[in-house]
Each structure stands twice: as C-alpha cells, then as structure tokens.
C-alpha cells in the first residue's frame, strides 16, 4: 500500500486543476461540467465548490451522468444504477467530463456515447484526478490530469473522500 496523494497534496492538485480549467474556459462562458456517477461525483463536487470561489455560482452549469446503460459489458453482470441529472442543454457547449480515475478508458467511451443523447457538444474535454498510464484499452486521454501514475493490473487505485470515507487521500493498493 502506497499513498499517492495525501490531504494537502490533493487540495493543491484540485486548486491547480481548476486554474487550468479556468485558463482555457474564461469565466466558464459556454462551458458545462459533468461528473460521472458514482465515484466521479465526489471529485466533481470538489471541483465545482472551488470553481464557485472564482466564478459567479450562477455561471456554473453542473450535471451528473450515469453511464450504466451505455456499458459494453451489460451481459457480464448488472451494475448499480445511479441518478442522471443534466437539467440543461449541452448543444454547442464545451463539456468538461470529470471522473476520479482514468484506467482502461471504457467508462469514458460509454460517457461519450451517453453525452450524444443529450445533444451535440462543441467540444468535450476530460479532467481526471488520477491517470493510470499505459493501461488504456481505448485511444482516450485526459486534458486535465491530477497525477499520472504507473501501476499494474493487480493493483487498485482507491480515492478516499472526507464526505464518504472520512479522509481525503489517494492510495495504491
């Protein structure tokens, strides 16, 4: 077991990510944030909380997306469903997808599929807290990356959040 990010590092990383996002999306004009259910939501909530300190809250459009119905492994087992809540149009918007860990890329593939059913975005970007390098099964990469790590299949990346696990931390198990 190895700590990848402790509480302080995690907080600094989130600060850096929101500034990178704001650098490319000034005042978040025409930009929407979409967190991926279930675990990406903790991360996207933090990002949105921090963005609210920089941008007027009513400028921030924030939705949640569950990709279960778009998975490519429905026949191998059913997954817990979560709420999808996108109460605005994404037509011609810049969409920033947010998830905690980027691993095989299959979740993001499904999310891109799902997004199409809500409209045709002008651009889609990806923001992840942890990028497990060299383990991609699809040609997908992130635009905003908290930290890239090298890991093998048998290892697991676990992200802990104060809201759920009582502590902010990322570990490699």
């Amino acid at each position: 077991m190895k700590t990848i990010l402790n509480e302080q590092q995690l907080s600094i990383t989130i600060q850096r990510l929101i500034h990178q996002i704001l650098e490319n999306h000034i005042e978040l004009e025409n930009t929407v944030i979409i967190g991926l259910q279930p675990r990406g939501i903790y991360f996207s909530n933090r990002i949105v909380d921090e963005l609210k300190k920089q941008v007027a809250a009513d400028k921030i459009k924030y939705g949640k997306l569950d990709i279960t119905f778009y998975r490519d492994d429905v026949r191998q087992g059913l997954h817990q469903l979560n709420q999808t809540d996108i109460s605005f149009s994404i037509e011609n918007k810049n969409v920033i997808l947010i998830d905690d860990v980027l691993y095989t890329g299959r979740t993001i593939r499904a999310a891109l599929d799902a997004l199409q059913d809500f409209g045709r975005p002008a651009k889609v970007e990806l923001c992840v807290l942890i990028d497990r390098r060299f383990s991609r099964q699809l040609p997908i990469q992130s635009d905003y990356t908290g930290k890239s790590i090298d890991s093998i299949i048998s290892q697991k990346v676990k992200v802990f959040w104060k809201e759920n696990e009582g502590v902010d931390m990322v570990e490699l198990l």
Partner: protein
Amino acid sequence: MQLSTKHLLGIRDLKSSDIQTILDTATQFKEVLQRPIKKVPTLRDVTIVNLFFENSTRTRISFELAEKRLSADTINFTASASSVSKGESLLDTVNNILSMKVDMVVMRHSASGAPHFLAKHIPAAIVNAGDGINEHPTQALLDAFSIREKLGTLEGKKIAIIGDIMHSRVALSNIYLLKKMGAEVTVAGPPTLIPKYMKEAFDVRVEYDLKKALQWCDVANVLRIQLERQNQVLFSSLREYSLAYGVNKRLLDSLDKEIIIMHPGPINRGVEIDSDAADSKQSIILQQVENGVAVRMAVLYLLAGGKSEQN
C-alpha cells in the same frame, strides 16, 4: 442488482427486494424517457419476441416501445395472423421461433399458467404479459410505481381494488405485490365477483359497499368488468352494476378527502367508472400508461442483462 428469478411469471414468485430493485431501476429509466433522445443502447444484442395470443393495445405497445427504447430487436406475433389457427401447438410455435435465436419471450395467453408451462420447456427468459385470470405482473409493477411516485411509498398505504376481482389478473398481481410491500388492501365489489375466502387466503379486507371502500382508501384501483371471461350471469345488467359500483365524480366529491383514481385500462366508460371521474384531476390513469414503458424497460433490462454468452 440481479433478480432472484430468471423469468417474470408472476409477482407471486418475486421477493420484496426484487420488487424494490425493479421499481428503483424504473425510476432511472423514467429519466431516460425525459431526455431529448429517449433511447439507450443497453440491449443492443438481445432479440425479443412478443407473443400475443390474446388481444392487447396498451401492454403490447408498451412492451414494444420499451424494447425499442432499449435498442433490442423485436418480433411481433399475434395468434390470429399465425399458424396457430392452422392447429400448431403452443410449444411447437415457440420452439420454432426460438430456433431463430431469440433471447426473450414476452407472452400473453388466455390460458392461466401458459407462461409457466413454457418456462419449464424452453431456455429463453419469459415475461408474462398476462395469463388468463392468473397474473399480470408488469401491470401490478407499474401500478405500484405510479402509487410510489404519487405518495412516496407503498408501506402503510391503503389501496382499494374495486370491481371484477374474480376474473382479474390485475387484481391478483396487485394483491400479491401490495401485501409484499407492506400496503393494506381492500377488495370491493358485488359478492358474486369476489371469490370466497379472499380474506383468509390473502389477508385482505372485503367490502361490499363501494362508498365505504372509497372512504377508507388512499388509492382506488378500478377494474374493468371482464365480460369475455364470465360464462354465467353474475349481475343483472351493466346499468345496475354501474349504479351500485360505478365510480363517478359525485361519489368522489362526497368523500371527506381526495383519493387517487387508477384504472389498468381499457376503460368501459359509464360502467365501472364515469368520464367525469376518469378524466378528473384525481385520476392518474394516463400517468400509469406512461410509467408502464419505464417499468417494462426495467424488467427487460434486469432479466436480459447479467447473463454471459455461455448458454
């Protein structure tokens, strides 16, 4: 997430946790149906045949729409336009269809137990869309979903099922489901249309006075008189039935509370329910139909998903 059964033959075989799972899943599908594109690719590789040996409008369209919204391939079969009229047996018909690689069968039949019989003989998953006077599980599930949507929960709620209890598969499925989910049930209607020993068999109240039943309940589920299944005279005329057991606005206004009115359709206006009650604000009849698609999507998804290609 997985249901405890391979088929949906009746509510009788379901655990309360299964019912909970189906209703929760349906909530997510209802959200899908509000999207600009009301379709998900979930069951892309699944082929479903709709076998209707008995007439149907709502159920068949609802199932077909649910299948299409899930991206499944569908085949429709109606007995009147098929080789059944040439004397082919049920099992032969179904086996012939299955040999064309069909994964699921949605079936309605006028004989009670027909889907149970098929389930013993074929490998595909079966969804009962109504069998004779036995069960109509997806109707009970969508009724429960509609009640839950309106009242928040089923537990402790008082539901009156009114009308032709004896010949109604909707009534039986509803009673099983509501009792499993902790609701209180009263069946109301003329004594000739309520089987004996209902109270002992199902732990439901029996009421022969319509007004008392309405006064007691939170929700009244009004059933159609199933004339096609009655082969003897059980009441003197439809007009007399309507006078004693027809639900109308005047009756609803005379209660000291506002109850919810449901009906599984098709409605015989002026018999079991008058237009002024069926089209009133208290009625959720059309919401029931809307919820039917989401509930059937949930059932198909839960039965089709999670099985690997090994069989």
